[in-house]
């Protein structure tokens, strides 16, 4: 994920300082890893270096003085370019679950049991996410991020279900190579 573009996107709403940007990032992307302050300030400095953002004075607001940043016109253009850029559809063929199943077959393990337990772990996580997104008062960011995670877990789970059904033929294929 491009932190620099996300910060530029947050700056599109108006000048802001690092502390506020971190808080708004964590609110908007509740299921993502929270941003470290150090990463926010380093990214802001790089945006200024690349002329995509600039310092817009300071803001004390009764507390310590904070540097305000705003996006430049170049920054707005870069954000528009990045937003419209199509992300390559990722094939995810190097997935860890896939690797474990193949290795379990190669090493004479118990891939069916692994798939069953992995499926249970996926379902437990899907139940947690469903509870989060259907809780009274869940905001749109929370619902969207939980939906995104649920859809990807569901894709894994469909693959695991199909693979469990195909295990017999898959085992024969791997054994013959």
């Amino acid at each position, binding site marked *: 994920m491009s932190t620099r573009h996300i910060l530029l996107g947050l700056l599109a709403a108006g000048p802001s300082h690092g502390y506020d940007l971190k808080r708004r990032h964590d609110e908007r992307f509740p299921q993502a890893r929270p941003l470290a302050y150090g990463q926010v300030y380093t990214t802001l400095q790089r945006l200024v270096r690349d002329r995509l953002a600039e310092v817009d004075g300071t803001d004390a607001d009764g507390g310590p003085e904070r540097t305000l940043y705003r996006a430049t016109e170049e920054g707005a253009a870069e954000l528009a370019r990045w937003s419209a850029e199509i992300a390559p559809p990722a094939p995810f063929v190097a997935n860890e679950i896939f690797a474990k199943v193949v290795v379990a077959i190669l090493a004479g393990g118990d891939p069916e049991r692994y798939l069953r337990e992995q499926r*249970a772990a996926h*379902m437990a996580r899907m139940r947690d996410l469903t509870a989060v997104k259907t809780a009274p008062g869940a905001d749109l960011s929370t619902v969207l991020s939980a939906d995104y995670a*649920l859809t990807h877990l569901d894709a894994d789970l469909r693959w695991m279900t199909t693979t469990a059904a195909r295990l017999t033929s898959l085992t024969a294929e791997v054994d013959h190579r």
Partner: protein
Amino acid sequence: MTADNSTAPLLAARGLVKAHGRTEALRGVSVELAAGEILAVTGPSGSGKSTLLHCLAGIVRPDRGAITYGGERIDQLPEARLSELRRTEFGVVFQFGQLIPELTALDNVALPLLLAGRGRTEARASAGEWLERFGVRGQQELRPGELSGGQAQRVALARALVTGPEVVFADEPTGALDSLAGEQVMTALAHAARESGTSVLLITHDARIAAYADREVILRDGAEVAEGADAVEVSR
């Protein structure tokens, strides 16, 4: 009817066997549903999910095995008593709501109350409240053919819950809906069930719908494969 012992399951099946002709749909399935629990039964097509629901809901009788409800054997009850149980204690929702096409949404929901001997005014008032809870009060005078799929399923849910059943049996209740409408229907069902303490036996092949349940039982070839184990250790 409630369980004598609070730790005993509300509904339990032991060793259910059911054949359709020469095909064994259930081959010794055992399952328990606790009071207030939402249990998902998942599995591929033909795994016996719907047959299990039909047996548990008293719609068909198993060939072998036992079903208890509130501690009482129900698989051998006379048809009249079983029918009363279905009317008073159970609610059922199918994939295609199976609403009566000639009746309005309001009258469809009021019907189970009228069959239970309640007055028309009271039945319609109750039905209206349930339609309100499911967000389809505005469609109460429409007939099923005039409703969207999601609206029709919400009406079907209201009809299943209007009598205050202890258990709702839902057979692929979102199976005919797009994913957003399906999630809205499932959210409505889960909220209503949790608010009223109603148990739900939910048949689905969709993991995202099963994730609304507290627990999952997987069927394959008429037997349960595994219960979704929450205790599985996840490496971090």
